[in-house]
């Protein structure tokens, strides 16, 4: 509530700052705007920025840091007796017995990471007055919950006061600085420049975020399951852990069947997409009359705009039953979730991708080569097959690599049309599962962030990211080199 009040107040102060700054600048030049260094509105913008922006940055920083600080303060303030009482109630008896001494001695420090998380969730629930917590636990945690609520209250009032103070101070000092020779435009522009630079580094931050979060969670996973077992194991069954004390409760995390399944489906997809995509690109760029090209190309590109979830539904609704019936007609036993169905549909999805990339690549081959070949009396197809395709080969290979990376990373089609069971097979009529299917099924629904099952999804994500990144880097480099050659 206070946060919204503050944001609105900041915006109003910013607006006020704009007019105050402008009028002050004009007044300082005795009403002759021309004698100012910059246009009056720049003076207004200067003051407005100083009034609103520091406060808004404060809000952002505060909101992302305050909960963490608050949680830490609450945790460190909990007396060991309370922790003991809570642990006795919430932890399995044997676990509690093992840890009781540590807890009694050092309070929350005696708990494991996930236990601290559970405790925190309980406190948050009690503080919010929710009924998810048993009354006993609620009774135990009343103290910390109240502590948390009072800290939260303090934090939001503190934010409001500091934010408003910052805004007023900014407005005041910025306005005082204004003078006819004040270089307002340069100041404003350098501030905007900083903003632009920050915006353009978001791409890097995103990549960094992806890499760090995947690495961090994967490292936790490899702490539970050895990395070689993950990379070279041939058994994948993460779901079997039902009870904590069960034998082999960690499940099996050998990812080879997933890799094989992913590659199988991607290979089928490429077998469909490359010939169809390449031939349609060739036909459209070299054979089709302009009117056909102008109408067919956008229609074909509709295929690229169809969401993957629609392809997934198409696969289970039409393609998979068709392939199964076809298999039955010739006496083949085809699974309902066959790799073939998922691969074919994925291939159709990739056709426009390959086709438009190869179209670019083929058109980048200089006309002089076509002329040269035609002048020797070559037919069109001879020119295409023996001159243009070899010349365009690096570009086409690059396009195919990009397409493979897409096929590997595609999720919805396989989630809907491929299987869940990790079979180690290359039979296209059998059901296989893929890396993306496993990530999706492992992470959909409620998850605890400490189980190997959940963390394995991040390890798979890391594999996926590394492989697609390599493919992309190589492909983009190949394509770029190729373009430079003919530019």
């Amino acid at each position, binding site marked *: 509530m206070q946060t919204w009040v503050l944001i609105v107040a900041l915006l109003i102060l910013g607006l006020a700052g704009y007019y105050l700054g402008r009028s002050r600048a004009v007044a300082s030049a005795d009403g002759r705007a021309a004698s100012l260094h910059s246009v009056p509105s720049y003076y207004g913008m200067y003051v407005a920025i100083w009034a609103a922006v520091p406060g808004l940055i404060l809000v952002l920083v505060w909101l992302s840091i305050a909960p963490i600080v608050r949680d830490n303060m609450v945790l460190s303030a909990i007396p060991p007796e309370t922790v003991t009482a809570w642990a006795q109630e919430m932890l399995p008896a044997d676990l509690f017995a093992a840890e009781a001494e540590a807890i009694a001695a050092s309070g929350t420090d005696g708990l494991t990471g996930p236990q601290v998380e559970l405790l925190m969730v309980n406190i948050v629930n009690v503080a919010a007055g929710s009924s998810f917590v048993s009354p006993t636990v609620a009774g135990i945690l009343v103290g910390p919950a109240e502590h948390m609520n009072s800290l939260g209250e303090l934090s939001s009032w503190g934010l409001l006061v500091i934010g408003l103070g910052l805004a007023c101070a900014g407005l005041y000092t910025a306005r005082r600085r204004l003078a006819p020779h004040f270089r307002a435009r340069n100041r404003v522009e350098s501030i905007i420049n900083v903003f632009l630079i920050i915006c353009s580094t978001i791409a890097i931050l995103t990549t960094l975020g992806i890499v760090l979060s995947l690495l961090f969670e994967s490292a936790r996973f490899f702490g539970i399951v050895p990395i070689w077992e993950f990379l070279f194991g041939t058994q994948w069954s993460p779901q079997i852990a039902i009870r904590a004390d069960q034998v082999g409760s960690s499940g099996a995390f050998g990812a080879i069947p997933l890799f094989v399944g992913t590659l199988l489906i991607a290979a089928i997809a490429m077998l469909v997409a490359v010939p169809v995509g390449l031939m349609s690109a060739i036909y459209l760029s070299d054979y089709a009359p302009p009117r056909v090209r102008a109408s067919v190309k956008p229609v074909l590109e509709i295929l690229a705009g169809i969401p993957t979830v629609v*392809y997934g539904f198409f696969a289970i609704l039409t393609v998979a039953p068709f392939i199964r019936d076809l298999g039955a007609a010739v006496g083949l036993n085809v699974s309902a979730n066959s790799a073939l169905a998922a691969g074919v549909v994925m291939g159709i999805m990739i056709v426009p991708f390959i086709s438009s990339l190869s179209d670019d690549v083929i058109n980048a081959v200089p006309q002089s080569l076509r002329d040269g070949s035609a002048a020797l009396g070559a037919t069109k197809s001879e020119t295409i097959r023996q001159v243009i395709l070899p010349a365009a080969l690096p570009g086409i290979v690059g396009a195919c690599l990009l397409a493979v990376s897409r096929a590997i990373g595609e999720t919805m089609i396989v989630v809907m049309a491929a299987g869940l069971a990790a079979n180690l097979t290359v039979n296209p009529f059998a059901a296989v599962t893929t890396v993306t299917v496993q990530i999706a099924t492992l992470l959909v629904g409620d998850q605890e962030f400490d189980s190997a099952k959940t963390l394995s999804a991040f390890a798979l994500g890391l594999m996926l990211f590394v492989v697609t990144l390599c493919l992309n880097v190589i492909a983009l480099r190949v394509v770029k080199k190729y373009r430079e050659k003919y530019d």
Partner: protein
Amino acid sequence: MTDLTHDAMAVKIGHHTSEDAQRRLRRRYAAERRFKYYGIGAICLGLGMLAILLISIGSRAIPALTQNYLTLQIEIPPEPLVASADHNYMQFVEREILSLFPEAVGDFQAQRQIMSIMPFDAAGVISERVLEDVSVLGGERIDVTLQLTDEAQAYVNGEISRSTPEADRRLTDDQMSAIDRLRDDDVIVVQDGRPVLDIAVNLPFYEVVNQSNFQSLANDALYRLFPEVEGRARRDLRAIISPGAGFELRQMILADPGLIGSSVSLEVPLSDEFDQLAKNFVDRDLPEDQRRVNDAQIAYFDGLEEAGLVTSRFNTQFFTAADSRQPELAGIWGALVGSFYTLVVTLLLSFPIGVSAAIYLEEFAPKNRLTDLIEVNINNLAAVPSIVFGLLGLAVFIQFFGLPRSAPLVGGMVLALMTLPTIIIASRAALKAVPPSIREAALGMGASRLQTVTHHVLPLAMPGILTGTIIGMAQALGETAPLLMVGMVAFITSTPEGLTSPATVLPVQIYIWSDAPERGFVAKTSLAIMTLLVFLICMNALAVWLRKRFERRW
């Protein structure tokens, strides 16, 4: 030049017109034609697949446009309404009593202790009172006198006390002190020599009616049409109407309490199986055990249809309701609103950031290592699988920053990161297409670089930027996988109200429905897909129109 080459050449004169050459030529042209047919074949395959996709999904979507309704004459007597809410009356009593024990708030066990001094069915008294006069609902508080359990009576009468061994008294000390307090407050009084609980309770109309079983009223109306059906066979009969019937009736009565005691004619939706039957999608020739409707049910249904009670109407429910387990009640409105909120977040984040980044990289950035790195980065990000962005959102936004799951806010942020490269690349291309002469002209007039960009370059590049943005938004609208990761896959039956309330989006709704076993969901999924495609086509058409309208050749 040597003689040898002269001879070689002499042999070859006329080579291109000889019989041999003609034969070779025919072969070459055959190869040429084959090659061309491969091309045509590839095009046809692509277009054919598109056609099959659209037709197979489109044709299955049509049935979902209509829904069959059964017209029922429903009696709304007060008795069943009030009676069906029977066991819930206790909560109104509970509310009154617990208000006397403020210290027990949030303490379930203490509450149970207090309430256990009364028999569980004590509330029968209240439903009698309500039946006598329905208008007490929502009116003044009414005084009711409730019985106490035998143990409580014994305690009040002094037959047992705290000193009685626990094994003989079946009352805990806490309960005893609760009784003491109630006596002090004159809530427990002695009437006709028996201790009773005498209390005034408030019966809010909405809450009572809300908990009544309206479905049974609709069922009764159906039973009246088939008086000969009795007992267990009625199960077959009531399967005809959707559970949504009771819901609709409740809304009607909540809106107009005066209907209680009258008889209304209401069109209630058929349940999915019978909707399918009405649409002739059930093969009546199949053996009975392979159908979802049995022979008796088909006979009932045919009877209703002959009587003209079954009508087919446009399925407005589909476009106005949120998700439901029942296909006949499910709609896409909730998902549409979710998609809207999500896209708003995406647009608000990715457009300003993307355009700013593009402006910086294209107009201001020095050519150095850092900007090269950013450029490579953006190109790579554009090709990172979308599910990886979902993992990022899960790990960073939800786990690290503790933002709520299933919220459009988080979904929108993830999609914004995903669309950012698209917008940056398109915006840079648009900025690049503005000729340098415009910049030079503005700079020559003494404008600063920022003024040049904002006053001259940006307006000229805007159509291209908007086109790229719309295409990016269309991608985001169709995206599913990263949203699964941040929990937008939940089953949500209400329309989201804000950026942080749990929501789902249209593609995810499609995914959820595609998994549902009920037959009706096939048509619903298909229609939802068609709706999604209509939105996407509109967005892309807008982008194409923008490009055409403002296309400028320099």
